[in-house]
Each structure stands twice: as structure tokens, then as C-alpha cells.
């Protein structure tokens, strides 16, 4: 089977202006959504207590709230989790540091008294306020260091224009994915941070494959304009870009459907992130590279570069 039997010849660079404008719009929308809608921060970042409870039969939401209120936990947030038999209770950080399992025991006892059938505590978690702050800080630092590391690597293997384009495209992916997380109010926990960094890796992977082809094509197709060389490179790598995206998505969808609640936010983030990353390696990274004025002279030796610059009219 072959989806790309003929050589494709899409004019990606010809439409770069409207497409870049759309990308910019997406980033802008994300920048607006992030502070207004806000991320649905999970326990890892907010601190507090979280208890996962399983009932024998699906409980009534109102009855659950009543039962919690009786146990003195009016400020608890209740949501179903996975199956209708399971609920997740989130209690914001309290002044008096009551231990998580004490709270959990209280909750379970209240439920046991008020509900028919068996009530089972599936898991409970407690995160102190300081840990949440540290995790946020670590997450942001991790993103920044990953981007710096990759900038330097691409700088060595390619050239500064490639570094800038790759990093800008990745930042684009990060913002848009986080915008999507805010829009759909996906629970933002530590696994989602891992997913975002994996997405960063994937996005760069994709971009670098295209760049590798551009690097190869510049000396080969010296007569063509930069836009044409980039277009040719994108078309040549297009089938690979799509295929790898498909195989990765296959596994991620399996993870999303069968992996259970614990991993679903992770899988969701990567599924969306990889669509965006695939898009950006074609429609964001390469146009930026062109905007930055990449030319065949960028990839020759430095001494030669000076000489050829002088020779230019």
C-alpha cells in the first residue's frame, strides 16, 4: 500500500503567509485562554487531598454531597472518575494539616453509613502547598532547559536560523497544546507535564527530519530558490511525516482507550500535541526558516560563506 504513490508537489511555501497568520492566531487564542479559562490544575499542583472511592452501585451526586457535608466537608469537589461507580473527591488545602488518610477514613466511614453496599477506597493523595509550587517551578525550568539544550544541538548540527525556527515552532506547539488543555479543561497533572515534554521531543524530531532534508537538498539543488528547495524537501519527507504520526497515534489511541483514568490525560495531551507538532513541522518551522532568510550559503563552511557573500552582486 502506498498513500503517496506519485511524487507529491504541494506548494507549502506559497501559502506560508495565510498559514503563519492562522498559527499566530492559534497562539494568540491560547495566550488569551490560558489566563481566562485557566488550566484545570490537578492535585499535584494545587495541593490538598484527593480521594478516589468506588461504590457497588452508581451513587447519586446529591446524596454524595449530602454525606460529605455531614462529615464536615462542604468544600469538597465531587466528580465521576472512569466508571459511574467511581467518584473522585477533591478537598482544597486546609489550614489545619489533617492527614490525608484521616480525611479519607472519615469520608469512607460517612459513605459506609449513608450508602448501601460496599464502599472501597481506591486511592488517596495528599500534596502539601510547598510541593505544588516546586513542581510548577520544576516543570517550567524543565521546558526552558530542554529548549536551550535543543537550540544548542541544532546550532551545532545546522545553523542558527534552524535553531531559531525549530525552537519557535516548538514554543508554538507548547502554547497551542496548553491552550487546548485549557479549552477542554483536561486535568493538568504531572503526567501531563511529561506528555508536554514528550511532545516537545516529538515536535523537534519531526522538524529536524525536515531540516535534515533541507540541509541535504541545498547543495544538490543549488539553482533553485530557497522557497523551492524547502518545498521540495517538505514534499519528499511528507510521507514519512504522516506515517510516523500515524503509528505514534495508533499506540496513543490504544493508551487513551484502554489505559484507564490514570493515563488518559497523558494520552489526550500527546494525541492533540502530536497533531499540532506534525502541523507545525510543515507549516510553522519551515516558513519561519524561510522568513529568517535561509539560503544555500548558510550551510557551507564559514570561510567560504564570507567569500561568496563578497562575490554576490
Amino acid at each position, binding site marked *: *500500500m*502506498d498513500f503517496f504513490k506519485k511524487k507529491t508537489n504541494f506548494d507549502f511555501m506559497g501559502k506560508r503567509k495565510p498559514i503563519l497568520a492562522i498559527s499566530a492566531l492559534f497562539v494568540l487564542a491560547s495566550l488569551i485562554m490560558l489566563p481566562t479559562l485557566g488550566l484545570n490544575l490537578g492535585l499535584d499542583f494545587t495541593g490538598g487531598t484527593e480521594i478516589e472511592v468506588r461504590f457497588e452501585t452508581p451513587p447519586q451526586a446529591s446524596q454524595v454531597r449530602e454525606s460529605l457535608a455531614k462529615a464536615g466537608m462542604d468544600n469538597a469537589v465531587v466528580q465521576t472518575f472512569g466508571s459511574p461507580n467511581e467518584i473522585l473527591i477533591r478537598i482544597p488545602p486546609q489550614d489545619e*494539616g*489533617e*492527614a*490525608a*488518610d484521616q480525611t*479519607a*477514613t472519615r469520608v469512607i466511614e460517612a459513605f459506609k453509613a449513608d450508602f448501601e453496599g460496599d464502599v*472501597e*477506597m*481506591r*486511592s*488517596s*493523595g*495528599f*500534596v*502539601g502547598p*510547598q510541593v505544588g509550587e516546586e*513542581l510548577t517551578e520544576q516543570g517550567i525550568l524543565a521546558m526552558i*532547559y*530542554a529548549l536551550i*539544550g*535543543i537550540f544548542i*544541538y541544532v546550532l551545532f*548540527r545546522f545553523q542558527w536560523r534552524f535553531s531559531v525556527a525549530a525552537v519557535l515552532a516548538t514554543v508554538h506547539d507548547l502554547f497551542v497544546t496548553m491552550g487546548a488543555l485549557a479549552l477542554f479543561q483536561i486535568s493538568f497533572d*504531572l*503526567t501531563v507535564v*511529561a506528555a508536554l*515534554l*514528550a511532545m*516537545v*521531543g*516529538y515536535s*523537534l*524530531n519531526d522538524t*529536524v*527530519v525536515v*531540516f*535534515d532534508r533541507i540541509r541535504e537538498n541545498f547543495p544538490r539543488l543549488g539553482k533553485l530558490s530557497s522557497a523551492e528547495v524547502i518545498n521540495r524537501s517538505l514534499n*519528499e519527507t511528507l510521507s*514519512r511525516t504522516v*506515517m*510516523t504520526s*500515524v*503509528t505514534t*497515534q495508533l*499506540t*496513543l*489511541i*490504544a*493508551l487513551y*482507550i*484502554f*489505559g*484507564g483514568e*490514570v*493515563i488518559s490525560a*497523558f494520552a489526550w495531551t*500527546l494525541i492533540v500535541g502530536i497533531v499540532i507538532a506534525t502541523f507545525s513541522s510543515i507549516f510553522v518551522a519551515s516558513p519561519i526558516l524561510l522568513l529568517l532568510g535561509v539560503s544555500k550559503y548558510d550551510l557551507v563552511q564559514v570561510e567560504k560563506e564570507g567569500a561568496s557573500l563578497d562575490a554576490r552582486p
Partner: protein
Amino acid sequence: MNQYPPWKYVLIVLVVLIGTLYALPNMYGDDPAIQVTTTRGFTMSSGTSGVIDDALAGAGISIKSSEQTTDNRLLYRFHDAEAQLHAADVVQKALGETYVVALNLAHATPDWLRAIGGRPMTLGLDLQGGVHFLMQLDMDTARSQALDRYVDDLRAALRDAGLRYVSVRAEGGGLVAQLRTEADREQALTIIKGDQSLQGLEVKELPAGETFGLTAAINEQQLMALQQTALKQNITTLRNRVNELGVAEPIIQQQGADRVVVQLPGVQDMVEAKKIIGATATLEYRAVDETNDPFSAQQTGRVPADSRLYTYQGNPILLKKRLIVSGDQLIGASGGFDQQGGSPMVSVTLDGVGASRMLEFTRDSVGNRMAVVYIEQKPGGQKVEDVISVAVIREPFGKRFQTTGLDSIQEASQLALLLRAGALAAPMEIAFQRTIGPSLGRDNIERGFKSVVIGFVAVLIFMVVYYRSFGMIANLALAANVLLLLALLSMLGATLTMPGIAGIVLTVGMAVDANVLINERIREELRNGNTPQASIRAGYEKAFSAIADSNITTLIAAFVLFLFGSGPVKGFAVTLSLGLLTSMFTAIMGTRAVVNLVYGGRKRIAKLGV
């Protein structure tokens, strides 16, 4: 021609074989087992295993196998969980209180595999259930405790030197001493410099007024040392406590400068575990101030400088500030009933230093009273100090004695347990806690396994449909890749968690990227009119730089994830990076070897199945 030298084939076969061997232990599962250890301070006697064997034989329980894993740890395997539970009961009864019998799941890896170092991956808490704590050292309290100690020591040093001072007290994070004359101050300074117990202070003179003052602060170095020793002692203490709980394979590790991670897999009774782990209880033995009247002190609020006011059974009591013995000098404690009165009591054994201090004190104080103060640090920072017993010293004693006056035998044995497990050097707070019930753990394993298999099969099918023969070859490489990844994780003793499984799944998806790159390149070369042999060669060669560059950028991201991530994120980073590394080997060298074997020898290939 496309041919590999023989050594390359040998290398590939060898790597895959070794991979299979070390991935194998994961296939065997676990045996229900019990683990027998001694409690603190006791060594396992050589007859222990005989006692256990007899007890099990007496109860009619058959053993699958038994072994001594370390000096004081015995492991008994059983055929089913029922026998295991029954055996735990029987053995605990037969051995008594000085032994801890814990339920355990022991890896059923065959001996020959274990002999070459084969072991299965450990399952993370999210896969087998259990409790995870992150405990944070409370440095503020540790510092003020250290300050109190300095105050005591300075007073003692000045008294010993016969120097009379106006006051010595802790004030605003430092220590302030007031002396009568300039000469006294000079002498005090020399005493501080010379005294071993007063090192680590930064001393300044205060401007002279009515008195001649000194201030001293604990210097940075000393504080760092304080933090380090406190953390080290706390880890030891936590280890002792966890051992008392009889958890099968606990993890107790330092994290950062002031934190300790405690993981208790498979713990059933979380509340009990938490009570023991989190408790920062210690005992202090103090002399009762017999010269002053506690009632008048309570009414007037004027407490003598070297005493403190407590209440005991509703009445005020004055206790000397200087303590005789504290919890860290205690090496043994056991609960029981007092032989004369029949009331609950704790029998205590002290170490050498504690014993000699106790002896010195009790020798001079026969007929006086001594109080036991029970100090517990509650979460949130309050300190609860209770006088739990006041007793008249009837005769001098040292190493062994009893503390009575407890409410119940349960309280006595719990206190004995806490005492045995030792005191925390500085209080700790729980900064993070995660409890996973066993049923959730089982579900997670099932789900994780299912998603790996389904994702894997989906990719296999896709590759065969899309790339035919070359897809088949890529699939072989993919299978070898998962095998090698499992082998590496097992060899490194990695812990498999749910995010780790996600890392494996994602690796499966991304690992085929190398083959996609190669296969697409071969197709391209064919389209450009090259011969099949040349296309294969060019495909592999030209794809290499793209594979290397793209994988290295992903590895950079994974490495950063590993450095900054904690817990679950780290597990993901490890599996992802190892998976990428193994995929470079299998996808490039592995597939090339197969392609060379299949196509390399042929002179003419009509059509490549790519």
C-alpha cells in the same frame, strides 16, 4: 553488495539472546511468601528456621521453598495465598514478639536465572498498591531544639567553671547570655571557645550596659551539619520503624537536602502505617524539682529559671529543665504488665552513655522523684508534651528499668514500639502522600498491559499492510526492541510504573520512525530509477543522519525530563530514552542484517517488497 561481515550477525544474535534471557524473569510472576525478620536489637538465632519449620509442620502447612536472604531475614514461599496467611499467623505465634512476620510476594524467578543476575522489574506503587510519603524535615523546629541544647550546655559549662551569670536564654533565633562583669564575659568567651559541646557558635559581644552581654548564633556550617545529621538519623529511624511494621520491600531514600521518600508497597493498613511513620514521639526523663512549690508557681506564674511547669494527673508539677536521658539513648523497650501492681508498663533498656548518666543521677537522688515526659510532634507544628509517669526513685539504677502509669496494655505496646523504633532527630512533616488501594493497582496492571499489547499489534498490522516485506522486517525489529527494553529495565532494577508503561507504548510508536524513514527513503530511491540493491544501500545511508539527529533531540528532551522530573515523570523519561537507544540498534542494525540476509546475496531482484 549488501552484506554484513559475519561478526555483525553474531553480535546481533548475541544481543537478542542476552535480551531474551534477562527479560525472561518478568514472565514468572510471584510466589506468596512470608518474610521473617528480627526486631531492632535482636539477632536471628541459628535455631529460628527450625522453630518455623516445626510450627509449619505442626499446622500442616506445606512449604514450597525457604531461604535465608540476608543475615537476619528468612523467606518462606508457599503454594497459595491461603497457606501464606495461615503460615504468617502460625509463625508469628511460634516466634513471639522479637520477630516480625510480614506477608510478601517473592519473585518466582528460577534459580539458574537468578544465578546470572536475572530479576524481574519491580512494580511501582501504582501497579501493586501501597503508600508513598514524601517527608520534609522541619528545620525551624530542629534549629530551636539545637538552640535549647546550646542554652543547656552553656549554662552547665558556666556552672561547672563556677562562673555566676545573670541569665542565659534563647532569643530571636540566637542565644543571649548576660554576665556581671567585663572579666566574667572574657572568661565566658574562653569557656565557649574551649568547650567541645559549644562549637559551631558565632559569638558577638553586646554593647555594655548594666550587664555585660554576649550573643551567639549557630553558624551556617553548623546548621548544614545539623540538617545533614538530622536527616541521616531520621532516615535510620524511619527504617527502623518501617522494619517494625514488617513491610516487605520498603524504599526509604533521601531526596534533596531536606526530604525523605518512604514507599511502602502492599501495605494494607494505611492509617496504622501512617501513625507509626509520622509519629515523632520521644521520651525524656527529667528530675522533679523538689525544692519549689508547684502550686504557687502555677498561681503566680513565676516559675524557677531552671524548671518548667507541667501538669500531671490534674496537678501542677515542676520539672528540672536539664534532662537526664532522652529517647535517642534508648536501645530497647517492650510493653507488658507490671509484676507487682499488674498495671501496664514499658520496660526500658538504655545504651552505655544513657545508663551511666541515669546511674549517676539516681545515685544522688534516691527518695526523690523522676518524671517521664512524652513528647509528640503533631502534624501542623504543635508540640504536645505529656508527663506520663512520676515515680519515686527507690534505688539507683542504670541500664534497665520500668516505666509505669500507662492507661492500657495497647498504649504500653504502642509506646514501646515507638520507643524501640527510635526518636526522630528533628520533626518531619508529610509534604506529599499518595495511597493506592490494591484493587486499583491490579486494574492498572491490566489496563497497562492491554494498552501495550493493543498499541503494539496495531502498529505491527499497519507496518505489514503499508510496507509489506520491509514492514515485516521492521516488525521483527520492533519486537526485538520491546524485548531489549524490558531486559534493560530489568537489569537496571528499574521500577515499572504506569507512566513507565506509557513510555513503553510511546516508544513502540516512535521506534518505527527509524524504519519509516529508511523505507520511505528506499521507495524514493526506487522511484528515482535506482536498482533495488543500490536503493537499499542508499536508503539506509541517507536516512541515518535524519535518524541520529532526530533521536538525539528527543533524547535531550527525555534527559531534561529525567533531571527535573520526580517520581512518575522520571519513570517515563527512563523508559522513553532507553527505548530510543535500543530502537537505534534494532531499527538500523537489526533490520539491515535481515534485509542483507534476504536480499543481499541476490544478483537480481525483480521487485522490492517495500
